[in-house]
């Protein structure tokens, strides 16, 4: 145990060491065009005026951010809440509501800085602690963040908010795996640790890069690439969070289900969902909110956003049908819970692919997701033998891995995909071969699984050591609503 804590401290040390290095580069960046913070300075006697944000982009990104918030509270809370027993309804809603808030606060304190500022290949720096430097009150200036187009900045605060919702929803996804038995305080302790040591590094590794404006000449390409996160440098494609969000959360979920143990009565008593109407409302709102999640990940209101939007729409509908027909065929009846689960499976699988594949990719990924995740919550679940209450692993990890790998296939222009640029100066097509890209994707999936599993295991053990992971048996029987929160969901 002590060794594990030491390991965590060592990780903290790594982060701290990266700070001075960042400070130097930040100074150097003041004179050059710094894309991540290309400050709009109209007063400066510059030859070319600094680019200003496009109002359409800003509007779309603010809207998308609110959409992603809607995905968590209420959508995910209702989707999950409907599937638990009525005595645990409020505990489910409460955990989602509070974890979302907790992570949002941590995001503004240190999460954003450690994820999206320059540091090393695993962690960012501490330059933006408490969002320091995003707004200069004396000059009335806002800092700028990069998008995927040159000279197209976004106010950095918009990017902070958009990404905050991603971090928060990812942590909320995990809650389904140990629903109906976890101690509330243990959940909060776990979330702080896992967010800090799994979400932040994976998001930094996959998504941090210097931005397109940094690539000013062929000679600087390698140096700029070297500043990016590890998986970005490998060329891993993850449009909106197949690895960062879904595999990350799904793995933390299954580890939690193992560590926490099965619910009382699992496999013996009927632990049936108490309100599938809520689950349907939740799944529908997830579908709606996911347009902000996926199409918003284009960071601009442009072609890429349009592609991501349509793919999200189509793949989800495909997955609803394939799950439904699969269930009808193998289990006898097409169920509402199956259709809602199919929608979420499709949304998960299309997430890494959204703007990275063409329409043919959306058809295949959606249809495959419904069937593969149906197997994930049936055959695979029995194989694993864990009580993953709401199938976070079977839907999010399985769907995420499927989507991440198929992104490597359908990104290929030969299969109707958009490809990606080989480097951000020459902007030539960079897609080499399907086999090569799938291998890169598989490596990224592997790193995410490893990181999340190790961090989650240690974080659960620490929470267990401090407060204990599970509520006592009599409280679990009575229900967490009344025993943990002193309330009852329904008075009828």
């Amino acid at each position: 145990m002590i060794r594990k804590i030491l390991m965590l401290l060592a990780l903290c040390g790594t982060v701290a060491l990266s700070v001075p290095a960042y400070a130097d580069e930040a100074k150097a960046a003041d004179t050059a065009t710094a894309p991540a913070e290309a400050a709009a300075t109209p007063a400066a006697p510059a030859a070319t005026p600094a680019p200003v944000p496009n109002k359409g982009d800003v509007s779309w990104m603010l809207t998308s951010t609110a959409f992603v918030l809607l995905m968590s509270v209420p959508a995910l809370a209702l989707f999950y809440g409907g599937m638990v027993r009525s005595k645990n309804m409020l505990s489910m809603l409460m955990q989602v509501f509070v974890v979302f808030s907790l992570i949002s606060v941590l995001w503004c304190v240190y999460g954003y800085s450690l994820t999206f500022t320059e540091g090393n290949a695993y962690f960012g720096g501490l330059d933006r602690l408490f969002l320091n430097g995003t707004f200069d009150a004396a000059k009335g200036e806002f800092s700028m963040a990069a998008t995927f187009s040159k000279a197209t900045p976004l106010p950095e605060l918009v990017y902070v908010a958009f990404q905050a919702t991603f971090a928060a929803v990812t942590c909320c996804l995990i809650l389904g795996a140990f629903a109906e038995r976890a101690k509330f305080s243990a959940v909060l302790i776990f979330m702080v640790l896992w967010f800090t040591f799994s979400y932040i590094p994976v998001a930094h590794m996959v998504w941090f890069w210097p931005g397109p404006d940094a690539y000013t000449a062929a000679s600087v390409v390698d140096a700029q690439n070297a500043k990016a996160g590890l998986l970005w440098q490998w060329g891993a494609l993850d449009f909106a969070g197949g690895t960062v969000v879904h595999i990350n959360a799904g793995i933390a979920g299954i580890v939690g289900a193992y560590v926490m143990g099965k619910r009382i009565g699992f496999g013996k008593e009927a632990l049936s969902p108490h309100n599938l109407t809520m689950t349907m409302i939740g799944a529908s709102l997830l579908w709606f909110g996911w347009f902000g999640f996926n199409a918003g990940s284009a960071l601009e209101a442009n072609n890429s956003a349009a592609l991501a939007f349509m793919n999200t729409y189509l793949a989800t509908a495909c997955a609803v049908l394939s799950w439904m027909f699969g269930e009808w065929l193998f289990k006898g009846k097409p169920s509402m819970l199956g259709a809602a689960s199919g929608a979420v499976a499709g949304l998960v699988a299309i997430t890494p692919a959204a703007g990275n594949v063409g329409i043919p990719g959306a058809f295949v990924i959606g249809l495959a997701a419904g069937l593969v995740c149906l197997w994930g919550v049936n055959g695979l679940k029995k194989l694993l033998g864990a009580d993953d209450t709401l199938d976070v692993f079977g839907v999010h990890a399985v769907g995420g891995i499927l989507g991440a790998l198929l992104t490597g296939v359908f990104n290929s222009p030969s299969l109707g995909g958009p490809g990606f640029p080989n480097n951000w100066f020459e902007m030539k097509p960079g897609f080499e071969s399907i086999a090569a890209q799938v291998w890169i994707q598989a490596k990224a999936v592997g790193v995410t699984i490893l990181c999340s599993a190790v961090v989650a295991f240690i974080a659960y053990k620490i929470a267990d050591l401090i407060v204990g992971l599970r509520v006592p048996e009599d409280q679990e029987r009575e229900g967490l609503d009344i025993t943990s929160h002193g309330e009852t969901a329904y008075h009828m």
Partner: protein
Amino acid sequence: MKLVTAVIKPFKLDEVREALSAIGVQGITVTEVKGFGRQKGHTELYRGAEYVVDFLPKVKIEAAIKTELLDQVIEAIEKSANTGKIGDGKIFVFDLEQVVRIRTGETGAEAL
């Protein structure tokens, strides 16, 4: 006086109420209940998990009536609650010792 208790399928409640009103029954009490009889339960499938539901939802109605109305009441319930399928329910008849109308203090048949 008799107390008639019947356990019926929930969706038959309105028909039974109408049939009883038509023959002059002044009031009934309705309770939502669960139980099992020869119909047994059914299985429900949620994602991978299959659960046997032993207790099915039913409606229990209670009517206090004059003895001379008994045969008509039984016939009315039997006809209106019948679907011909398993699970239609049962009728139980009890002797009723005393009835008191709280508002007026009337007792016996006058209180019905």
